[in-house]
């Protein structure tokens, strides 16, 4: 009796430890790099419009192969000119069609000053190969919190971005 109990316990333990995740559920990784620029406005003089800073975004996105339309993306942001700043963003991307997706999330710059706000965008994919797309699309960012905001103002920017996306 004791031997049978011990054998059953070992069998259960072995099943738990050696058990593999379901083969149908796999994470699919993607990577992208885009350049963006556009217009920026808001601030203390809400009528002012300026050219937005040129921004480089390098991102990784994750999705589960069972739900290929739901994608989570994390990006590193670097504004290049006329002034530099660095930050990150986190977005939920929804694939509307094989060539079109929309995204929404938040972005935050933390150097040299902090700047946080929501973002949304739209991307059109020009398919070059089954794993490589050229991505073009507009994006709207609104910065509502941060030490980079003068006074109690809000700064927004509308960007047009273009780049490449690869399924890893």
């Amino acid at each position, binding site marked *: 009796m004791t031997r049978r109990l011990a054998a059953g316990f070992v069998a259960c333990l072995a099943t738990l430890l050696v058990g593999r995740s379901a083969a149908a559920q796999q994470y699919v990784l993607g990577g992208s790099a885009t350049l963006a*620029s*556009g*217009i*920026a*406005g*808001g*601030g*203390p*003089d809400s009528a*002012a*419009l*300026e*050219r*937005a800073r040129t921004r480089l975004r390098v991102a990784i996105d994750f999705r589960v192969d069972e739900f290929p339309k739901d994608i989570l993306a994390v990006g590193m942001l670097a504004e290049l000119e*006329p*002034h530099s*700043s660095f930050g990150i963003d986190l977005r939920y991307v929804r694939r*509307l*069609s094989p060539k*079109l997706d929309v995204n929404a999330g938040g972005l935050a710059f933390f150097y*040299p*000053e902090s*700047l946080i706000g929501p973002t949304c965008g*739209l991307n*059109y994919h020009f398919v070059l190969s089954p794993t490589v797309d050229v991505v*073009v*699309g*507009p994006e709207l960012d609104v910065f509502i919190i941060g*030490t*980079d*905001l*003068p*006074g109690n103002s809000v*700064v927004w920017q*509308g*960007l*047009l971005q273009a780049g490449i996306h690869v399924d890893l």
Partner: protein
Amino acid sequence: MLTSRLPLAFATMSVSALLGLAVGCKPGECLRVSDCNTGLMCVDGTCIDAGTDAHVDAGGDARPDGAPDARVDSRADSSASDAGKRPDSAQEGGSARDGGAHDGPTADAADAHADAHADAGEGGTKQPSDGGAADGTRG
């Protein structure tokens, strides 16, 4: 229905963003604090030196708040001021600020220009706060 309208929205937003690329950044103005150089503050859309409260323009030179731009060529103004100080010019041509110096005799106008050039040569660029010829109150 939604997907049929999306390309139109996409195109509209893209064109708007492209048009925005043509908008130039105005010098000396700021939307964000980091638009200004280190040590400056962004106040009312303008980069301001926090210590001296001096506006800073694209050229990087600072001048007191409210003071006129010293880089503006003040030759005509200073010559008029000089001419205006001459009794004969004041009588013949009226106020120097009204252009009396240029209306006066040729010799007076030429003298006034010569004075102005001499002033510039002695003191370099005239600063309004120096009390020089630019404000017509030569010491």
